[in-house]
């Protein structure tokens, strides 16, 4: 079976990337059928985070479309078993997933660990894609200020950059959302 469509979406904080991702998922479901799935990666670590999660949940539930929510904060590949070829899946967002993988263990960030984390995320995404109809992956742009070398932010940005490069390469379509406006960077919408 051919791999399902992979759609990659990024943008800055509050750029409207999540709304756009949900919109294209709903549009796709309307046109082609299929079950909408939300793969929730967030861990409610503080009240503000909990509020954000609830806001996103309400937004999805208040719409006409029915979303199924599946919670998987780490090793997302394990959730592949829940899906079948009728599923449209939204993952929002890669940075949360990366944080969960990086900060859950008291592990030193050596090259070996970072390579393992990247592998877990990329193969996890591919596993889900292989089972589904459409997989939409949302992430965050964080690469536009000066970064001091060899600190935590440097390694974090480097691994996130590598993940984004791989996802754009694998994706059928890629979008950059600027101030609510999606810019089609790859593939035809």
């Amino acid at each position, binding site marked *: 079976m051919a791999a399902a469509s992979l759609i990659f979406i990024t943008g800055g904080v509050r750029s409207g990337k999540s709304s756009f991702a949900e919109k294209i998922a709903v549009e796709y479901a309307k046109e082609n059928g299929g079950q909408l799935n939300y793969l929730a990666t967030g861990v409610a670590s503080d009240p503000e985070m909990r509020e954000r999660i609830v806001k996103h949940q309400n937004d999805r539930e208040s719409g006409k479309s029915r979303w199924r929510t599946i919670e998987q904060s780490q090793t997302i590949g394990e959730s592949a078993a829940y899906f079948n070829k009728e599923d449209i899946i939204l993952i929002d967002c890669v940075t949360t997933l990366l944080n969960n993988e990086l900060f859950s263990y008291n592990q030193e960030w050596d090259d070996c660990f970072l390579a393992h984390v990247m592998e877990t995320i990329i193969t996890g995404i591919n596993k889900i894609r292989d089972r589904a109809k459409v997989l939409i992956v949302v992430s965050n742009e964080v690469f*536009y*200020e*000066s970064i001091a070398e060899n600190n935590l932010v440097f390694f974090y940005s480097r691994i996130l*950059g590598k993940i*984004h490069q791989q996802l*754009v390469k694998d994706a059928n379509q*890629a979008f950059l959302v600027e101030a609510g406006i999606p810019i089609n*960077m790859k593939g035809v919408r």
Partner: protein
Amino acid sequence: MHFITGGAFNGKRAWVKGNYGISGTWLSAYQGHHLITDSNQIESNLLILEGIELWLKDLTKSQDSYNCREIWNSFMNDWLFWEKAEFNRRLVVIGTDTTKGIVPMEKENRLWRDVTGWAYQDLAAKADRVDIIWYGLNQTIKKTGDGKL
């Protein structure tokens, strides 16, 4: 001159290698190379200057913003002169975009960021081609008639 910019870790180097090949002279500030000003030291027809924001940072340590810009532009003018002296020569300049974050707390970092922004404007004005690299994909935002690649 081909100016290439984009955020950090977006695959700028890989894109340049993919489009220009691996031959040519690479001067990389990330590898600790200095920006040489003597074109007699360059034997290939392709010169790539990578990580120019770090060379600009060095300039800001001893110069004010006006002088940084002047000195940088005179370096670039020399290399543009070198490029134009032979038909097959090509100058490729790669600079990471560091200008879209919040205003830095420290005065020296604000200066560095300002100088970087101005230097990129000047480079883009002189370049015959400018590309922004976004996770390995390029977007050409300027291309004049004599743009070779």
